[in-house]
């Protein structure tokens, strides 16, 4: 299983950009791509699963809030950048965030009321080491996230 993993120095630096139609059936493809890159970087299985879920949440949000493009399908861009510290993932869409990501920090107190939505950003923040989220009323929405490599993998392996 491990022969796909390169020494960190070789595997570390890289950049992939993936563009998928803003459609639910494509999220799995992006998930698997990101998982492939993360595995190659010596992330543990738990970390790879965390990254997969965080990316899925960011893309879901992009899809659910993407505008209907007048001249064709809206697209979602996923940039995956790695260095010896870890993995950056930047998800960009051309839609406006309409509250899907407006979740406060910390675990919610449901107080008897169970949530059916709005957990995406909570998950992203919990699963990744750094998250930033930018949007303007007409600008692209960008979710940028970082997962740090475990110390041992980053300094050798």
């Amino acid at each position, binding site marked *: 299983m491990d022969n796909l993993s390169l020494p960190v120095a070789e595997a570390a630096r890289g950049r992939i950009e993936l563009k998928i139609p803003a459609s*639910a*059936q494509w*999220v*799995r493809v992006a*998930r698997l791509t990101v998982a492939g890159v993360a595995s190659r970087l010596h992330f543990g299985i738990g970390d790879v*699963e*965390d990254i*997969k*879920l965080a990316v*899925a*949440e960011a893309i*879901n949000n992009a*899809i*659910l809030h993407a505008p209907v493009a007048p001249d064709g399908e809206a697209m979602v861009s996923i940039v995956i950048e790695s260095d010896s510290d870890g993995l950056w993932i930047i998800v960009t869409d051309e839609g406006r965030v309409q509250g899907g990501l407006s979740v406060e920090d910390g*675990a*919610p*107190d*449901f107080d*008897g009321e*169970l*949530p*059916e*939505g*709005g*957990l*995406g950003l*909570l*998950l992203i923040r*919990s*699963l990744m080491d750094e998250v930033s989220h930018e949007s303007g009323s007409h600008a692209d929405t960008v979710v940028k996230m970082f997962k740090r490599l475990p110390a041992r993998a980053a300094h050798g392996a």
Partner: protein
Amino acid sequence: MDLRLRVGTQGEATVVEIGGEIDLHVAPRLRAELLRAGEGDSPRVVVDLSEVSFLDSTGIGVLVGALKRVREKGGALNFCGVQSRVRRVFEITGLMRALPIFESREAALTALWEEKADG
């Protein structure tokens, strides 16, 4: 795509076994299936998540939605088979405490008849 569903009955309860990846793409299909499982008056449903390998927030929304609908009809819906990945997602979102989760299918089934469905 990679969603597996098996619906059966055990006594008067409906048992829904879910396997594979629950994401935005398959959420509508799962929602429809759980709606069907929760039909009738005071439905009793067990949802077994043993084979679920991926669960995102849209999947959570579907599971929570199904639970709410069943409770509204005076029924009960219990979960079992929560494996480590699903457990992690439930823990982050605070749902490990908020959902009726049982260690075994037998315990989930038994509790369907003990529990007052008072939400």
